């Protein structure tokens, strides 16, 4: 019997029992896929996490978990640590150790983080504008490519910040923001984020606001104190929930800038000496801020991931052995059921070797198909790992 004949007969036999064949292919594919996919996902995640961490030289933030601080600054995860005050940023900036980039990522619009920062952030991450332009004023935002794609947004559209708690009527005020630009995709959490001027996040926080002028006729009924010097505004004063060219000048900040909140500050030191100086300065336990090396924090996180991976791999290996044993049993039972068919092949002239080849070919076709499917799955997992990681972390 020729090899093509063996292949043809094997193929026909597999097609004759499609459900059994597909079940076997699926089982073997999944058995092969899971451990490899887990390894690939963790390995790729480690690469992606490390790459983003390495592009963030140093991070200054409140004292607490360095991993929480790093994930908040790099992946805009919900803020677990207390806020940093703006005066800490100013203190660091005045030291002239390098570029300082503020990050305030407390707020969200739906599931997308709103990141208050400066224009330097775009340079640090090499983010380019794909459509439109960077934000130019309070209330403007630039959004990531994936967010724009998923919501069908384009420059000129608006997006509204979400209240943190719908029952907190006096809390965060939803701000409708003008989208001025869409970033080019770069397969990082930036693709899902909304970037605004730092001051815009303070408007959302309620530290700055705009309202109609207190001298307007609508609120003339407001009471003045006895000296007539202080005008007490009443509830009729309309507060703006959107910054426009017309009301831009009416937005103002209350209180001391130094007390305004931030999440963290990225420091890109000018050179090694300035990096060492920055690290040394924040070693003092009396200083309420810490400085972390994101690459080191991510390394700790990766070590935890690898430990978890080892545990999962042992579990997958045991399950895999069980699944393969079951598949082997299915094959053996199947060949026993087809004994008459094999005898017929012998009667019409097939040698014992040819029959063994026929059975072997069936197993090989199933194994190869399962391996290919598993490999495609592993490749897709590797490609999707950065996005998957972003979603899992955020």
């Amino acid at each position, binding site marked *: 019997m020729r090899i093509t004949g063996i*292949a043809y007969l094997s193929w026909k036999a597999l097609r004759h029992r499609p459900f059994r064949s597909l079940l076997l292919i699926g089982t073997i594919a999944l058995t092969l896929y899971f451990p490899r996919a887990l390894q690939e996902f963790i390995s790729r995640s480690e690469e992606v996490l490390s790459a983003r961490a390495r592009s963030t030289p140093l991070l200054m933030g409140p004292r607490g978990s360095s991993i929480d601080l790093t994930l908040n600054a790099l992946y805009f995860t919900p803020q677990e640590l207390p806020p940093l005050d703006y005066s800490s940023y100013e203190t660091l900036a005045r030291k002239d150790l390098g*570029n*300082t*980039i503020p990050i305030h990522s407390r707020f969200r619009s739906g599931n997308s983080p709103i990141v208050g920062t*400066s*224009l*330097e952030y*775009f*340079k640090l991450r*090499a*983010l*380019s*504008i794909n459509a439109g*332009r*960077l*934000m*130019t*004023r*309070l209330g*403007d935002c630039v959004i990531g490519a994936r967010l724009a794609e998923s919501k069908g947004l384009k420059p000129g559209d608006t997006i509204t910040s979400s209240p943190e708690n719908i029952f907190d009527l006096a809390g965060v005020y939803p701000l409708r923001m003008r989208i*001025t630009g869409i970033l*080019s*995709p*770069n*397969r990082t959490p930036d693709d899902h984020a909304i970037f605004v*001027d730092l*001051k815009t996040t303070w408007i959302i926080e309620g530290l700055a606001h705009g309202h109609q002028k207190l*001298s307007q006729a609508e609120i003339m009924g407001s009471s003045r104190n006895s000296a007539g010097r202080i005008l007490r505004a009443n509830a009729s004063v309309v507060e703006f929930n959107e910054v426009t060219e017309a009301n*831009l*000048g009416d*937005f103002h*900040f209350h209180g001391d800038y130094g007390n305004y909140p931030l999440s963290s500050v990225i420091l890109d030191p000018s050179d090694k000496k300035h990096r060492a100086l920055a690290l040394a300065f924040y070693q003092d336990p009396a200083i309420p801020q810490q400085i972390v090396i994101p690459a080191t924090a991510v390394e700790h996180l990766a070590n935890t991931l690898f430990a978890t991976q080892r545990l999962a791999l042992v579990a997958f290996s045991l399950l895999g052995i069980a699944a393969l044993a079951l598949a082997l049993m299915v094959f053996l039972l199947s060949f026993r059921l087809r004994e008459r068919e094999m005898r017929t092949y012998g009667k019409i002239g097939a040698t014992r070797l040819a029959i063994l080849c026929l059975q072997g070919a069936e197993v090989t*076709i199933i194994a*190869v*198909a399962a391996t*290919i499917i598993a*490999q*495609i799955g592993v*490749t897709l997992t590797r*490609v999707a790992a950065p996005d998957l990681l972003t979603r899992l972390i955020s």
Partner: protein
Amino acid sequence: MKSTSSPALLILVTATLVSSCHHSNKKENLSLSERSKPIIATVNYPLAYFAKRLSGEFADILFETPPNVDPAYWNPTDAQVSAIQEADLVLLNGANYAKWTSSRTIPYEATVVTSSSFEDTFIELEEGTSHTHKSGSTSHTHEGFASTTWLDLELACKQASSTADALCEQFPEHAESISGKLKILLEEMRDLDRKMKSVTASLQGTTLVVSHPVYQYWTRAYGLSAHALHWEPMQKLGTPELGELAAIQGEKPPVKYFIWEGPPTEENINKIRMAGFINIVVNPCGARPAKGDFLSVMQENIASLSEAITAGTSSNTGAP
């Protein structure tokens, strides 16, 4: 046969996916597009002048405020803000000057406040009055700090020095040339400062009336006292304005000098003269002058003051 084509397909799919990942990372940052010269953006003309004098030809100066608009109350368009965002250095005056900078997104890391070395000497303004400069234009109120710092030429020297420091830090390769140019600029400005002190010495003890509240640093630096109005040189002066002027004359010690920000109309010159004042133009030079430069405008201010004082002295002594 099919089993041999599947791995090929797998390789092709993988290669395409990997290549698309790499391609997306190769896009260059638009903001780093190549330019022939660095750009220095400024919020007023004096800083643009200092930056130009100090940088010479190695940088381009971005100061887009139209000549007839006060840069302190100018509102840039989105396109103009985008151009400023591309600047290598942004020079601010400080003291709340150019309020647009607090509501627009500018590159903080490239921004230098040229008055930060003397911010403890800023002059606080009393409660302001909302007013407009032209019919139809946006109303504004002078509140917070007085911001025309450069009219005190000593402060102007400090701002020029801050500008030089910022330029040296940003463009260290030009540091030597910048230092040399700063020395010459400071000499010229100190010379003007001496002349200003000399010419204003005879005004000390008298009260001046100024058309707009922008001369606070000038009056403090040269020991003068001024009563500020909110008039424009082209404004038509009616009975209320002249009444206001008469009231000042009544309550203040002999007042005889009226200082305008820019050349007033002939009618206004005559009305002020009829009210017993001598017209003087002291141009703050916040906006780019139609002719000359910052130093020549300051020189003209000194000449204008000198001429008016001579006229005032001769009128006192009965000379024609």
